[in-house]
């Protein structure tokens, strides 16, 4: 049985002023025991998708099920199966983590003695035993995220939804959380996480769906996605705008980003001399050139036309570039 089965879901928000299609058409399937990453920029529709799958938002159109249970019609049964840690950590800062775990255990139906036992287990699991009696407002961002993760695990859910679990964390805290998420996957928990970090998707997710403007624009394992753009990426760096404009006439399949032109070809290293000869003959000065295997960053650029991190602006493309959608 599939852990998550999403078929053409849509979400439209209608107000007096306007109508916004936050999710236009999203479909994907997640197998049990895998980490599935929804990768995309802010506003792509990742969080809205998660909110629909966790029963917190209605689905405007389409179908979704969790372990075969319909998300729209069997909310309560779905909630029994899932753990949820949303972007805004829903944590009461005035309480201690021990009190929060105990309260959450009781709300999930554990009796008092089982709640105490489970609280100790979870504190140990997320590494907060030492800080258990301190009020949460004194915790670092990383500790709060670990607590948030722990709270979503109280009832040992089969499926865990994590909405941007490491946003705002320092690299060290991020690494700790990654290890914890991988460990959960290894114990059989299915994890669906959203992220806007390429590195996180690459490192954590067994499979990735790239979401842009409410649509899934690519899906597969990290290796499959990288292979899908074919060959190597050759990056040419230029000194002047004039050189770039002229170079685009030569490198007709290139994608521009700032002062660079990138082109994807088979066996890139062997083709560099030929390209350089053509460019030099056209009177274009190339500052540097390099060939590399494609990264997830390149995949994102290829399928969306812009980079996920850094520039928010869409990347200019030469007219002949083929979009991956």
């Amino acid at each position, binding site marked *: 049985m599939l852990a998550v089965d999403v078929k053409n879901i849509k979400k439209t928000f209608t107000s007096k002023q306007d109508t916004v299609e936050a999710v236009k058409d999203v479909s994907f399937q997640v197998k049990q025991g895998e980490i599935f990453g929804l990768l995309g920029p802010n506003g792509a529709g990742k969080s809205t998708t998660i909110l629909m799958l966790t029963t*917190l938002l*209605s689905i405007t159109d389409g179908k979704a099920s969790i372990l075969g249970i319909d998300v729209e019609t069997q909310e309560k049964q779905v909630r029994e199966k899932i753990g949820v840690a949303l972007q*805004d*950590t829903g944590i*009461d800062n005035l309480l201690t983590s021990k*009190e929060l775990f105990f309260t959450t255990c009781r709300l*999930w*139906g554990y*009796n008092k003695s089982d709640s105490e036992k489970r609280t100790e287990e979870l504190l140990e699991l997320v590494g907060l035993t030492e800080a258990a009696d301190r*009020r949460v407002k004194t915790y670092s961002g990383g500790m709060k995220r670990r607590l948030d993760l722990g709270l979503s695990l109280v009832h040992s859910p089969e499926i865990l939804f994590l909405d941007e679990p490491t946003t705002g964390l320092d690299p060290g805290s991020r690494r700790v959380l990654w290890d914890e998420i991988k460990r959960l996957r290894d114990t059989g928990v299915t994890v669906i996480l959203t992220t806007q970090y390429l590195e996180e998707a690459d490192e954590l997710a067994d499979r990735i769906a790239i979401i842009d403007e409410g649509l899934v624009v690519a899906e597969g394992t990290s290796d499959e996605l990288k292979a899908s753009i074919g060959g190597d990426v050759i990056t040419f760096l230029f000194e002047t705008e004039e050189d770039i404009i002229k170079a685009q006439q030569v490198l007709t399949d290139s994608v521009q980003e700032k002062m660079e032109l990138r082109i994807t070809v088979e066996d890139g290293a062997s083709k560099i001399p030929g390209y350089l000869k053509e460019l030099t003959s056209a009177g274009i000065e190339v500052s540097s050139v390099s060939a590399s295997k494609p990264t997830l960053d390149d995949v994102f650029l290829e399928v969306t036309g812009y980079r996920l991190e850094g520039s928010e602006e869409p990347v200019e493309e030469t007219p002949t570039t083929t979009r991956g959608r």
Partner: protein
Amino acid sequence: MESNRTFLTQLQILTKRLLLRVIRRPLAELPNIFISAFFLFVYDGALGGVFGGSAQGTPFDFANGNFVNFILPVSIVSASVSGGASGIYLVEDIESGVFKRYQSMPISKWAIILAPMLVGALRVLLQAGLIMVIGKIIGADPAVGAVGYFMVLSIAFLWGMGFAGYSVAAGVRSGSSQGAQAASFLFFPALFLAPTFVPREALRGWLATASAYNPTTYVIEAMRAIMVDGWINDIIFKGFIAAGSFAALTLTFAVLSARKATEKA
């Protein structure tokens, strides 16, 4: 896990969590208690000399010789406004994401909404109780006997629940703790467009008319009957009806508002 996750168990757990929050912020309790006690001391100090024991036998003898008995209901009504914190508790949970976490769990949404109202009511009991203790220390003595304290507290509880419901409705409708807090300004016209310092018969003009339509009037009059005059059943009954109706009305308003706010978008 237990299979019987009942509404009442959930309500009890959520109420306990909010009470912990109240205990962790003791300073938040002080302003309202201070204002209520301040009213009691200042009014007794400023007016007790004129309308207290020395007024006996004069047309101003409406306090039956004990002005603390007469003015204590004003401080208790003031203390019962502490129920207005309920909306703030709920909105704080919405703003912090706690509300959404609970919504993602199989918990009754009514337990999530009623818990802050219950905490607001307990807060009213605590604050009104403290004001009564202060009143007793400075000379309050209910005309109906010690049972009068219990009766006054009961009316205060209902009145406070009314404010709790009102603030929850204002909070979920405005979606901000500032909105819930701002709504408590209703308290000032409610308290002062009433026979606050003198009996209703002594009011005149527009204030006499306004006080007749203000439910606070009947709440204060019932408390005063208990404290000053004794068993004047129809006045006491009207006080319970006014406070109970206010509570029923605002709680209905709160439930309807909360239902709308918790509907899935």
